[in-house]
């Protein structure tokens, strides 16, 4: 049984080997919907939008899932020497890639390192922030969906949120990536058991004539911060949240041996274009 829903701005597939298990799939989709509702930048009512409006003014109580995603984002920000940073929302807004809900008059916008935890579910920001969790939330949502499927007794299957995917159970799944030069062609790159893979590339952005959504947070020059990467950058990791976030570190550093990958037991895979 394989089902697909439009969520997180993309197509989310959930596949399980058995024919029964509709309720488990429904609940897994609900977990993804919940991540979508909590962490979506597009939704002015999401918890993320509330954080962007309020966190520099007052302490904000957040859901345990948002807290966990933010903690991981902070952890990867630190380990990647700032190459991974969720504080780039305003740059995507300026490029027309994200909607403008908040008008920032203050130009001294901070990053994820300005967020500090007062309690496990209570945060405050030192500076105004325009966080976008688009580089990590899909992976996090995939992990939450897998957790639901496992807890519902599903023995094996896969969850794929727009190309960020995780497989579970004692079966190995063949994995394909798109040829970055000809995205209608798939390249079988290997087989994966109990793991996750995510890929960053700009072939769809180029096809749709959009500006690059891969932002180099360390580059202050507006004409250079949209990184025009070529090729396709994949990360294999045990959990999809790390695979998703670390693809940005790989794409920006162009270094398969960035120390960050070993630290999170991840493997990097580049396909040249």
């Amino acid at each position, binding site marked *: 049984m*394989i089902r697909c829903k*439009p969520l997180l701005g993309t197509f989310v597939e959930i596949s399980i080997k058995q024919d029964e298990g509709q309720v488990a799939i429904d609940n897994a989709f609900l977990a993804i919907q919940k991540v979508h509702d909590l962490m979506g930048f597009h939704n002015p009512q999401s918890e993320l939008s509330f954080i962007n409006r309020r966190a520099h003014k007052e302490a904000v109580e957040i859901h345990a899932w948002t807290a966990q995603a933010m903690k991981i984002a902070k952890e990867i920000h630190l380990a990647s020497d700032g190459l991974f940073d969720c504080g780039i929302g305003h740059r995507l807004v300026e490029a027309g890639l994200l909607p403008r809900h908040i008008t920032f008059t203050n130009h001294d916008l901070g990053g994820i390192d300005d967020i500090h935890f007062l309690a496990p579910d209570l945060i405050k920001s030192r500076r105004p922030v325009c966080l976008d969790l688009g580089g990590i939330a899909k992976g996090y949502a995939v992990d939450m969906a897998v957790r639901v499927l496992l807890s519902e007794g599903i023995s094996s299957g896969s969850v*794929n949120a727009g190309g960020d995917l995780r497989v579970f159970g004692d079966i190995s799944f063949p994995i394909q990536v798109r040829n970055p030069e000809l995205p209608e062609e798939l390249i079988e*790159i290997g087989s994966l058991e109990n793991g996750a893979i995510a890929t960053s590339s700009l072939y*769809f952005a180029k096809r749709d004539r959009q500006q690059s959504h891969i932002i180099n947070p360390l580059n202050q020059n507006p004409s250079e911060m949209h990184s025009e990467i070529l090729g396709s950058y994949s990360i294999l990791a*045990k959990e999809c949240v790390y695979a998703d976030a670390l693809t940005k570190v790989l794409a920006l550093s162009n270094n398969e041996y960035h120390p960050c990958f070993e630290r999170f037991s991840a493997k990097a895979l580049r396909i040249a274009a």
Partner: protein
Amino acid sequence: MIWKPSPLAILGFAIISTPIIAHAKIYISVEQAQKILFPNKTLTKNPIIITDDLQDKMRAASSIRYPFQGERIWRSADGGWLVIDEVIGKHEMVTYAVALSPSGSILGIEILEYVESYGYEVAEPEWRKQFIGKTINDPIKLNQDIQNISGATLSCKHITDGVKRVTVLYDLALRGTAKPGTSK
């Protein structure tokens, strides 16, 4: 995590001689969509004739230009609606189902089929027709064993536009119609 790279991949990706082409995925049939979105409920087919005026209004509200087909509409005994529609992008055609409550709120959305092409074909009705109404068991080339594509994120914006036109359809044509079995 157990990762086994493909032997060809180790040697370099360029040498793969027969690339797999991403064509089409059929997720669920119309019957399965009905069961998933309206579990344990009886649905009655309730096609609607789409007048030119209604077609124009739906087009204006959703930015989708090609006409809506009114044949694939069902109604549940308690007054809910199931609408199946297609969105056609430059490179893909997606069939999807929207379930609406009697008051028009969205109960759920399911993708039935996703067909992708990078040629001119998507614009050709003849090409699209070959996929309509097919199920997983049909012998068209669907690469059913190829299901785990890691790739750049595909946008579902067309679906958002499509759902918008279904909600416009509800507002202009479905809302307030008599429930099945009742007379006005």
